[in-house]
């Protein structure tokens, strides 16, 4: 019983301990106030580090939020991008060795070779149960585009309509999400109306003619003779020039430029059928006929896109899910964030020497005070605690200054960044997260206490007799 009693923490003992902590904290605060300039300067060094780290956290968080927004409004979580050649995802194609065996499915460009997906593979994918909406990535080239409002011929980019992204419309109406526009319909960006000098409303229902051209074919002598025999010289001339076709569509909607949209902000969008028609017509007779970079598809309802991806990969395809895309963007953001945070940590490291230095000077200056306190019965560990708490106060002060400035900078810079980068309403690249700030502050205090360890040990070991002999 008696032996046990020693280890029981009685309420009084606990209260006394709390009192001691409170007293020491107060005394530490008072000591710092007596050297205001020095305390402030030391904590400003920490504030620089705290500010940098807080800003990097805010920028990372903000950018992740923004890209998350972007991805969620643009990419269906079930979506998959499937290609034949996995080197596309890594380096944009395999570095070419120069000379290689002929393969109709391999395209060579800019020193990189890339295996393309052929129609057979696409048909195979489309037949699968776990995939729906298999759409090749059509590369569309349109020679010219004409509007009923104007006699001028224009050139413009044309892309396949993405039924999963609903853009804001300036005029007209888009079908519901997931539903494509009709084959004879076209969606124009608002910029077109501006160029044409008409209002978006005026374009709705109007005719847009797309002119596409088949590449000129090089005919052998026998073929040329045959063409002349059947179609005459004009036929041959037409072949040499390339056949043209005009696709007539009507404008169903004019979209606004959107800040959270990846695609089609400067291109006219046509339906998948029209896109196929254009792609096939313009590549007919060439090596790239019915060859595509890959397909976009969706994991069928009830299938996990990650599992579908794994299965596709076991069959020699390469696929990316919406999640992969997100993590790719996040990786970039994270790396940038680490670099900035790294500078902050360096600044913090430098400031630690400031704390150590300041506290050493403080110990020297207060030798007699330490001696007196020890003479009056203060224990070495309590003296040490006093100096560690002083360091903690410096860390706290520096943290509050740095984080406060970061909060201020976030509030002031956000509207400016938003305006400069035209991010659109409510999108901010800097996000100040309160719990990040609290964790950072706690870390700073701990780091400061660690830095205060050496000076505090010196204080604790001070011989009171020697100390009281000075002055």
């Amino acid at each position, binding site marked *: 019983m008696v032996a046990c009693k020693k280890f029981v923490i009685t309420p009084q003992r606990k209260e*006394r301990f709390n*009192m*001691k902590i*409170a*007293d020491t904290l107060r*005394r530490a605060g*008072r000591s710092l106030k*007596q050297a205001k300039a020095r305390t402030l300067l030391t904590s400003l060094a920490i504030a620089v580090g705290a500010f940098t780290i807080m800003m990097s956290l805010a920028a990372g968080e903000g950018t992740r939020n923004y890209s998350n927004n972007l991805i969620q409004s643009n990419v269906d979580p079930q979506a998959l991008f499937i290609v034949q050649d996995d080197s596309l995802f890594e380096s944009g194609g395999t570095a070419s060795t120069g000379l290689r065996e002929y393969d109709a499915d391999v395209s060579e460009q800019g020193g990189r070779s890339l295996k393309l997906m052929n129609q057979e593979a696409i048909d195979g994918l489309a037949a699968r149960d776990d995939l729906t909406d298999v759409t090749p990535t059509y590369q569309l080239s349109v020679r010219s585009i004409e509007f009923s409002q104007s006699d001028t011929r224009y050139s413009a980019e044309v892309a396949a309509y993405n039924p999963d992204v609903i853009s804001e419309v300036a005029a007209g109406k888009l079908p519901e999400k997931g539903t494509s526009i009709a084959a004879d319909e076209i969606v124009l960006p608002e910029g077109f109306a501006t160029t044409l000098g008409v209002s978006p409303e005026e374009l709705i229902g109007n005719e847009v003619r797309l002119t596409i051209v088949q590449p000129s074919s090089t005919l052998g002598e026998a073929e040329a003779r045959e063409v002349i025999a059947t179609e005459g010289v004009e036929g041959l001339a037409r072949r040499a020039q390339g056949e043209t076709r005009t696709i007539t569509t009507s404008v169903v909607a004019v979209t606004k430029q959107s800040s959270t949209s990846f695609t089609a902000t400067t291109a006219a969008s046509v339906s998948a059928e029209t896109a196929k028609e254009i792609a096939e017509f313009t590549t007919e007779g060439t090596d790239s006929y019915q060859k595509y970079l890959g397909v976009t598809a969706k994991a069928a309802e009830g299938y996990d896109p990650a599992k579908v991806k794994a299965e596709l990969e076991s069959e020699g395809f390469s696929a990316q899910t919406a999640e992969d895309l997100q993590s790719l963007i996040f990786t970039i953001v994270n790396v940038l964030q680490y670099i900035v945070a790294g500078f902050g940590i360096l600044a913090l490291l430098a400031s630690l020497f400031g704390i150590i230095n300041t506290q050493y000077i403080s110990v020297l200056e207060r030798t*007699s*005070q330490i*001696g*007196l*306190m*020890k*003479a*009056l*019965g*203060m*224990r070495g560990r*309590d003296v040490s605690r006093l100096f560690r708490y002083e360091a903690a106060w410096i860390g706290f002060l520096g943290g509050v200054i740095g984080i406060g400035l970061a909060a201020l900078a976030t509030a002031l810079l956000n509207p400016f960044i938003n305006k400069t980068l035209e991010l659109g309403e409510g999108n901010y690249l800097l996000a100040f997260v309160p719990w990040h700030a609290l964790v950072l502050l706690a870390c700073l205090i701990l780091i400061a206490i660690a830095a205060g360890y050496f000076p505090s040990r010196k204080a604790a070991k001070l011989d*009171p*007799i020697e100390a*009281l002999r000075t*002055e």
Partner: protein
Amino acid sequence: MIEVRNVTKTYGRGEGAFVALDDVSFEIPDGVSVAILGKSGSGKSTLMHIMSGLDSVTSGEIRINGENIFAKKQKEIDAFRSRQMSFIFQSFFVQGKESCYDNVGMPLEIAEVPASKRKELIMHALNSVELGEKAKSKAKDLSGGQKQRLAIARAIVNNPKILFADEPTGNLDTTTGGIIEDLLFSYNRDKNATLIVVTHDPELAEKCDMQIIIRDGRVQEIRDNTTAKGKI
């Protein structure tokens, strides 16, 4: 009762060894005022440090109320010092940048006196040295005599049983020194606390009940006036 028994203190070893105290023995009854008188370098300060447990002995023991303090752990000696002893120094050692109130409060913090009781103790101590009105002033704004009064307030705030004063009037003029002496002796009388004054001033020593004269680390003479003054 403080018993000093065969205390020897040697600094260094071998040929370079210096004997600061050589077989010092005497007894101090409770509640008396004692002067430890000696020239500088005689070992009187070392003796004070050893009696208060701040310094260790090479051999011998210090018994306070029958207990050898050197048999205790450092933690217990520290706790004992914070509750039973206090000090006054020649150069005051008041904390100039702190208020008088905070200066006096320090021993209470160290002795872990509950915060609720502190204010009364502090104001009582300040009033007894007539510095009650200066409670909020910074200590550095006080005159020399006021600083030593503040030091006395700090020394007596926790009602110590033993009060050490190391040349308490050494830095003060005669008039101011006189006030300080009066304060010390009245505390000694009123609280029946032991007052140990370390000094080289024979006049101050004369005013004490006992004089222990130290020379070259040895007790040269002990004069006991306690019976003459009607004490004990």
